[in-house]
Structure formats: C-alpha cells, structure tokens
C-alpha cells in the first residue's frame, strides 16, 4: 500500500468501519434525526437517549449505510459524545472530530466525514427546540449536491 492509501485508510479508520461503535437503534429515543449525503445517496440515522437530567447524553447510536470514512467518523463520534451534554455537543467544533479522524480530507470526503456529526446536531437542536444555527458546522458542506 502506498503512502496516500496508508494514511487515508489507516488501521484505526478501518477498525471503526469494520467494528462500528454504537451501531444500532434506540427505540423511543429522546432525540433522533436522519441525514443524507446528496452526493452519493448515503443515509444515516442518529438516536440519542438523555440521562435523568435531560441534558447528558446517556446513549447514542446510529444506523444507515455509507463509505468507510462516513461510517468510521460516525462511529468515532459515538465514542466522543457519550456522556457529554446536549448543549456541548450541539456546538461541537468540527475540528475536534477531524482531529480524531486524523487524516487530511478532500472537500468531497469532508462531506462524508461530517454526515454523522451534522445529523447528530440536527437531532439535538430539534429535541431542544433550538434553531439550527446558520453556521451549523459542516451543514452547508454536507448539503452541497
């Protein structure tokens, strides 16, 4: 495998892709949304259950189909956000996720990587009744067709 391949499809990404964390559905979730990448038709659904306080993310799961980058990024996101507050995650800087992914992405692949995060943010804003911020990280990227 050459250097480019090695970096984009490095072990940790393939591992998250093949063994996605938090893959599944939460019945009667407190927050829920579906997102799609108009570029390739990929879809992801995100489900969130809050803790007692109605703020802390107790459980977060995803289902859907997608490429290795989008699936791995969403899997990483599940690990990153569990236990944090809804507020915190609703304004999560996309750089935090990108750092986790750890490889440079081209604009098209950035949309893949952001699909899960954007959908999660939409789910949280919907549940909280807060308006979707205009600068919703990755949203515009995501919806580019």
């Amino acid at each position, binding site marked *: 495998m050459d250097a480019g391949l090695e970096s984009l499809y490095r072990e940790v990404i*393939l591992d998250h892709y093949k063994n996605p964390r938090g893959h599944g559905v939460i019945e009667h979730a407190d927050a829920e949304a579906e997102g799609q990448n108009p570029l390739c*038709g990929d879809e992801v659904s995100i489900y969130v259950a809050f803790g007692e306080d109605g703020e802390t993310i107790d459980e977060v799961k995803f289902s859907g189909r997608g490429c290795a*980058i989008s699936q791995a990024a969403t899997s990483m996101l599940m690990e990153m956000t569990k236990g944090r507050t809804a507020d915190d995650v609703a304004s999560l800087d996309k750089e935090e996720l990108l750092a986790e992914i750890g490889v440079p992405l081209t604009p098209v692949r950035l949309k893949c990587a952001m699909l899960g995060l954007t959908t999660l943010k939409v789910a949280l804003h919907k549940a909280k009744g807060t308006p979707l911020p205009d600068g919703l990280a990755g949203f515009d990227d995501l919806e580019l067709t």
Partner: protein
Amino acid sequence: MNAVPKLNAHTLRADFPIFEQQMHGKPLAFLDSAASSQKPRQVLDAMTEFYETSYANVHRGVYVLAERATEALEHARERVRAFLNAPDVREVIFTRNATEGINLVAYAWGLSNLGPGDLVVVTELEHHSNFVPWQFIAGKTGAEVRMIPLDEHGELDLSVLEGIAHDGRVKVVATNLISNSLGTINPVAKLAEWAHAQGAIYVCDAAQGAPHTKIDVQALGVDFLAISGHKMCGPSGASALWGRAELLQAMDPFMTGGHMINSVRLEKTTWGELPHKFEAGTAPMAEAVGLGAAIDYLEAIGLDAIEAHEHELAAYALGRLGDVPGIKLYGPPADRRAGIVSFNFEDIHPHDVAQILDLQGVAIRAGHHCCQPLMQKLGVAATNRASFYLYTIPEEIDQLVDGLHAVRKVFA
C-alpha cells in the same frame, strides 16, 4: 480485414494536453468521460483564435469584428445542424448544457400545453435532468409523471405502455438515447412512434448519445433533442437543443430579453424569428465556436469509428472486471451498450473504491450519477462507473483492474 473504420486512440490521445501530466506519480487513467470529456488542442485553439482575432458581440454590428463573430457563431450552428442531420439550421438553439435544453421545452412547451389529466412519460433510467424538469412543470400544471420501468437486464420494459395510455392523455414522452449509468441504448425510434400515436411529443435526451453514436433526428423521428457539448470534446458553457420548427414557432419563448425580440413596446412585445426567439441575451459565442470545432474533430475521426472503439472497450472492460472477485456488474451485455460500465463490490462503498483508485491515477465516478430513481431500483445508494471515449486506451482499463485488486487488499 474489418469493415468498421477504426480509430487509433494512442495517436488521438496526443491531441489532449490533459494526458501530459501524471497523477500521484502514475499515468492518468481518465475513466469519467460520461461526466465530461477532455478537450483536444484543436478545440482550445479555435476558441483562443476566435477571442484573439474575431471577438465582438454578434448579429447587430456592421463592423468587421462583429461580422466575423456572427459568421463564426452561425457556422457553428450549421455544424450542429449537420451533425444531427436536422432539416433546418434555424431549429438549432444554443444552450449552456443539455439540462437547459430540456428545461426550455418543459417550460416553454409544458407550461402552456400540460394540464390535469395529462401524462408525461419518462423512464427509470433517466438522468435527473430529464426527470425533475418534467416533475416540476407537471407539479405547476396538474399533469402527472409516469415511469417506464427497467427489466432485469437494465433495459426498458415496454409492456407497460398500453396500461399507461389508459390512465390519461399522454402528452410528452421523454427518454434518453443512452443511459449515463448503465450504458443502455434505448429504442428511441420505436418509442417516438408510440408517442406520436398517442398524440404526444417526444423529447430525446441525447447528452450521452451524441458523443458516442451518429445521431439523425429525422431517422429517430423525435420532436426535440438535447445534446451536451462538454461531453463531446466541446468546452463547458455551450450545448444545443434541436426542435421541430413548427413546434418551436408555435411555442412561447423561454427566456426573454435582448436579441430574441422583433419589436418591444410597453403595450406589446413580439418575438423574433427562429432560432433567435430562444436565445435571449449574449450567446456563449466562443463556446459555440468551440463546439463547432469539436464536431469537426469528431467527424474527422468518424462517429462510427468512435462507436466501434467504445464497444470494443466496453467488451474488454466487462470481461476483465468480471474476473475481479466480489464485483457485481450492472446493465446490458456489451453489444447492447455504449462505453459505460457500472459496478459495485458487494461490501465496499463506491466512495472508498474511487478514492483508492485515485491514489493509483485512476479517475472513475462514484455516486448516484444523477439517477436516484435508478439507484432505488437497483437497491443501492451508489455505484462505481467507468466510462470511455475516443482517447481511452485498454491500458487504462488494465490500470483500473489492478487498482481494484488493491482496493480489495485494503479492505481484506
């Protein structure tokens, strides 16, 4: 000896400056010509020369530059006419892209001729550009859209036609000539005959047809036909719509404004003659000149030679891809398709395939190819698509196949 004329892709390739570079240190295997083709030097030179020696706004000026520019634009129009074997040069309208040509018909014909109870018939194989405009205008007029489904070979199932005709007045039949996803060649002449028997007009999306096979609008018997200049060695920014003069004359214009009028008064404006009535504002002049040069280029090679070359490549690709473990191929057999091959690994997403191929210098397309209804039918979100043109060489297909083996290794 072969009766079909042959082209030499290795030689032609030298006309295309894009191949003078490497990608990620590998030769460029450009297998995405169905999205847009590369341009030969001859086309680029024709445009530059036009700008450097003959540029001015057309049609109105009485000075030399304006006359030269007008002559160049109208010469390009005549080249398109001959290319399509259209009866009359006034029936050729320059557009930005094939999509605009179809929108022109959907708006200018559809808005005044469609209504409740009317049907627009398309196919499951359509590119969004020959489906969404009909859906949109049908929505505005109360008409309904029906789809001719695909059979298991990726070809149209015409047995549904009778049933459709019972459901309403068929007013428009709109299909492509060649599918951009599967390469399927559709029975346009037959469908046009059926459309006319219903009293419908036939709109042919030849965006993929025109680059790859000799088009004859009179033999096809269609009423409108849209081509996409940038897919046939022409520049971006100029394409063409052909339409029957009687229909164009009877229609409202689409865009209005400068150039397309006869006389303008606050009380009443009258439209200019064809083709001007449908060309509001300044035309894509240099780009139309480039399209004319592209037609010269294609015709010097010969459309039959291009078609034969693509069939050969399609057969070669289908054979070689069939040997790659885990690959599923979509669409009809090689002899019934153009140079377009869609495929999937059962367990690897097309985005990942295309990305890993890119790192090996291979450019293919991964996505829904603007054919979401077809993707639904195939039960996938996306496919990989390799598409070929006159400059494609078998070595590029070999490079693709080698690349696919590498993809499998990554995901092993």
